[in-house]
């Protein structure tokens, strides 16, 4: 059991892997910016300004203001999750990038950690693209909202690590659809994103907060963007830090078991 949570052997060389992924990202910059730019605008118009017309207020705020933080949160989740499932799997299995790197002084722990750091960075990038757009529509309170950017790193890292666990155990690339459709999609809809968790029965609420990482992200981002910051946020952040540490260790150890026979 302990071997699944063993401490990895990591040096600052991790950054070299991060830089490799950054360099690839930079070569295809325009197309990388498109999804985080366009998707939230579409949701904002369809749900916020469209459907939102039929909704007066949710928890005392207009519907657009209610979903705006969710759109950023969801984008952080997608960024980390897809980078470290499909993205990492392609690099590992099809492009053999990991094999090439571990022939150098880097080890597999560092390769995986570098991938996770990059996934977290994608979360930050997405948040940095979406926040200004939402601000144009007056949906963010400053300066509190600026904290969303560094927070996106933790959120992105958490989902990158979760994703990497699935990448480590998936038999093939198609099977990554299971966590995507059975975990990420429900989370996308039921984490207090488009309707408040308080609509759900109390037990369901408790369960949601206990097991849905996105629910915590949404609470924190919503509170930052509305400028009302309460001490209870520390609990959400503590939950995320604990969960991230666990999945961070687990993902690296699972990957080692997969790659080193």
């Amino acid at each position: 059991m302990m071997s699944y949570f063993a401490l990895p052997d990591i040096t600052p060389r991790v950054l070299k892997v991060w830089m490799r992924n950054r360099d690839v990202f930079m070569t295809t910059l325009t197309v990388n910016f498109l999804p985080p730019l366009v998707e939230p605008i579409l949701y904002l118009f369809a749900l916020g300004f469209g459907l939102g017309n039929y909704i007066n207020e949710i928890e005392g705020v207009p519907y657009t203001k209610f979903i705006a933080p969710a759109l950023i949160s969801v984008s952080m989740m997608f960024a980390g999750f897809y980078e470290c499932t499909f993205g990492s799997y392609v690099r590992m299995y099809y492009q053999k990038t990991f094999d090439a790197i571990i022939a150098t002084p880097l080890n597999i722990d560092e390769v995986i950690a570098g991938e996770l750091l990059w996934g977290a960075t994608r979360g930050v990038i997405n948040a940095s693209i979406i926040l200004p757009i939402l601000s144009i529509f007056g949906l963010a309170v400053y300066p509190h909202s600026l904290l969303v950017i560094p927070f996106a790193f933790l959120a992105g890292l958490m989902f990158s690590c979760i994703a990497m666990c699935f990448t480590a155990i998936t038999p093939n690339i198609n099977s990554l659809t299971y966590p995507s459709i059975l975990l990420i999609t429900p989370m996308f809809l039921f984490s207090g994103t488009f309707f408040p968790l308080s609509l759900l029965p109390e037990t369901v609420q408790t369960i949601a907060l206990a097991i849905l990482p996105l629910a915590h992200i949404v609470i924190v981002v919503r509170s930052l963007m509305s400028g009302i910051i309460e001490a209870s946020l520390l609990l959400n952040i503590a939950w995320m830090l604990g969960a991230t540490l666990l999945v961070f260790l687990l993902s690296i150890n699972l990957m080692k078991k997969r790659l080193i026979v």
Partner: protein
Amino acid sequence: MCVSSRRSSLKVFDMDVTRDQRKIKNLMGVVPQENNLDIDFSVYKNLYVYSRYFDIPKRKAEKRINELLDFVQLNEKKDTMTDLLSGGMKRRLILARALVNEPRLLILDEPTVGLDPQSRHVMWDKLRSLKKQGVTIVMTTHYLEEAAQLCDRLVIMDYGNILVEGSPSSIIKEYIGTDIVEAENTPEVIACLEKSNAMYEQAGDMVQIYTNDPHDITEHLFSECRLGKITARAATLEDVFLKLTGRKLRE
């Protein structure tokens, strides 16, 4: 690098592979059998990104990369994306990549598999010149001509066991002799060969006679055995390999 054996130990440059893996990998270059170039990068960028893994300072890396691109004759393809390169160019780029850290030990897994004759000879030239520079090269190959061309020391392995070890020429001499005479495989020829105590092997419709003196044996065969067609040629590593491992397909 993967070391799984618990009973035995492996040392490279007097360093233990489990303990000093980073140091060893710093002195080592690897050319894997499967191309694993970064398809997202140009030729130059592939080498540059790789040099970063070795903590080579930028200036030094740029200089080294230009030298290497000249060495493997890819300078004109500097800015080409790697998936547009030919098979031979990809192998040469991988060789260059394995050399960015100026390794003392170069490990090659089937370096010329699938290459056309020209590309293969260019690769051989490069490997020979590296050998001259004092780089230790360890390679696996199933092209026995390649082994004969490049290797000072050769090990023939079958199902994980070492069958022979030595220089290519000494192995050929020891197991075959200098030459091979091939004749048609007929009962008369076999009977005649048996009578004259020749070393021979049947291979399909041919019979191969191992010898150090092809003139003598052909003359003998012509006069004594009334042979039809006969060819004599120099013995090769392939003959040794087939003799030692048999002619059955291994699947």
